């Protein structure tokens, strides 16, 4: 064999080997906050893998995507904390080794064992949380009004409100304003919630998704976002410190997102490593300040890594009070969920 031929064969073998070595890919179905290089690159570099992210909005969309995919297409799933049970019931998620997860380092209120586990087996772990409450422009509203939900959507602010376009937290806020606990919402509560939504809707200039709500607040189109929170105003805070949020006296809704491993994943070891990275203090600090939206890290040790300024924006020191005054998203069963969506759509098209 000539030297040239040997070199060519050797080069080809090295190229193939190198290709094989970097061929491992992890496919994750996530919310937009995971699609941030600052979060994903360190994991890719550490493990020499490629993480493919597919963003989605709404659990229904994720479940539809999973239904249409082949087993093994997806390795990791990020999902609304209250919807974990839906994926566990259908056998979509694989058990997680509890001893390898930093559960004892988490804020106790967001561990949510009843949501993330079943019969003592953990299927998901909380990675981030925050609040659906009231965001506002402090220069344009009477700040004391923001402490009372009924004042927020009263005629005083008619045409200056945007409603966050997600039925669960907004209907949760409506329930809270009527003294109904979010966990106790049932068919009988819908009449009271409907009345509040009618009032809210008549005062609202728009019903907006994340980007549209942020744009509306930042451009002065509206002064208040019902259902907003730190996730909405944190990215605006640097340039527009007057954009802020509060939790009214009646309370507000708490959102959580969980991360789990799909039962059909063919690379469960790597998927588990990814989950462990995301819930580690380093991963948590990056996830909580993601370019898409900010939110509190579930792992309290992330506080050692976050800067003083970042913690101020997240209102780190007030979390104890906020956690005690907020309630989880409503978690309706399928029938109630459909009834709530129908009511929401009826109100939207009023």
């Amino acid at each position, binding site marked *: 064999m000539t030297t040239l031929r040997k070199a060519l064969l050797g080069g080809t073998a090295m190229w193939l080997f190198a290709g094989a070595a970097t061929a491992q890919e992890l496919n994750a179905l996530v919310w937009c906050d995971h699609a941030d290089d600052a979060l994903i690159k360190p994991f890719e570099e550490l493990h020499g893998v490629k993480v493919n992210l597919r963003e989605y909005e709404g*659990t229904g*969309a994720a*479940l*539809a995507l999973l*239904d249409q995919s082949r087993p093994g297409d997806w390795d990791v799933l990020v999902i609304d904390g209250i919807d974990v049970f839906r994926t566990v019931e259908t056998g979509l998620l694989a058990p997680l080794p509890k001893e390898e997860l930093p559960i004892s380092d988490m804020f106790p209120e967001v561990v949510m064992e009843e949501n993330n586990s079943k019969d003592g087996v953990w299927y998901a772990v909380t990675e981030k949380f925050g609040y659906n409450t009231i965001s506002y422009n402090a220069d344009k509203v009477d700040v004391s009004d923001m402490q009372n939900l009924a004042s927020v959507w009263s005629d005083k602010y008619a045409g200056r409100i945007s409603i966050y376009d997600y039925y669960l937290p907004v209907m949760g806020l409506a329930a809270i304003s009527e003294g109904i606990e979010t966990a106790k919402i049932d068919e009988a509560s819908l009449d009271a919630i409907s009345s509040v939504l009618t009032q809210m809707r008549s005062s609202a200039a728009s*019903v907006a998704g994340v980007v*549209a709500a942020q744009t509306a607040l930042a451009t002065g189109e509206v002064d208040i976002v019902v259902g907003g929170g730190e996730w909405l105003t944190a990215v605006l805070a640097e340039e527009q410190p007057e954009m802020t949020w509060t939790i009214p006296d009646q309370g507000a809704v708490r959102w959580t997102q969980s991360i789990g491993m799909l039962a059909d994943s063919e690379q469960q070891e790597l998927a588990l490593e990814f989950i462990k990275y995301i819930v580690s203090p380093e991963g948590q600090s990056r996830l909580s300040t993601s370019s898409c939206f900010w939110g509190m890290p579930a792992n309290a040790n992330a506080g050692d890594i976050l800067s003083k300024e970042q913690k101020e924006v997240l209102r780190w020191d007030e979390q104890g009070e906020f956690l005690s005054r907020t309630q989880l998203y409503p978690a309706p069963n399928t029938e109630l969920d459909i009834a709530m969506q129908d009511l929401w*759509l*009826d109100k939207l*098209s009023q």
Partner: protein
Amino acid sequence: MNSDNVKWGWGFVTPALIWTIAFFIVPFAVMVAMSFANLEGRSLTWGFHLDNYEELATRAYLKRAVLVSLEITLTVTLVSIVLAYPLAAIIAFRVPLRWQRLVLLLAILPFWTSYVVRSYAWLLVLAREGLINQALLEFGIISDPLTLANTRFATVTGFVHFFVMLLTLTIYANLKQLSPNYRLAAMDLGANPFQTFRYVIMPLTLPGIVTGAFLTFVLCIGDYVTPQILGGNNELTIPQVIMVQLGRRADFPLASALALVMMGMVTLAYLAAARWLRIDRV
């Protein structure tokens, strides 16, 4: 026709046939079948169920979405025609021939920007503190900002901006095909400019108007982005309701039924256009 020609003919047609079957006929058949399926919880039951269509007939927000879509689409189509016709006529008859290409290029310049970016740009123009309100306040025409964004007016404005360009092109192409002799003959026979336009030019440019109007109708009724960004979700259109069924409920059967209703409306628009134009004779 000899057999070689037939083979060649099939050879040319087969790729297009396979494409059409794979990407139109099969998906369409699946959509039709899906619209008669039922979703119970998360399990799909195939069969011939009319539940989705019954829901369409009874649910207030679904009926309203159909009505809103039709109202917006018809408004946009009419306003676009009214604005595009004079623009096309000015370009065709008043602008010197050597400048016409440049003027057309300028007219379609907004096509070059992203649809989403254009919609957000309109949102900034129409906002409470946007360009229009600032100007009106500055000149003392109004004392309080007008609510322009997040309204049907904003949705129609965004659509019209886009479709005027499309209609201008179809009408301009039609106007340029007309021989100047028609105008000269009409005037020679004593018609004034209005009569010439009303009884000669406009009837002859109807194919351009109707073709552009049909394209406007099809693109407008199926559009999701503009009403979502500019309408502020204050009125739901059919595409928005379809997105809700897919994104939040994963209710493919109801979404399919809605999509078929929308296709039915487009088909009716096509039949009306074809009948009006007597397309078989064009």
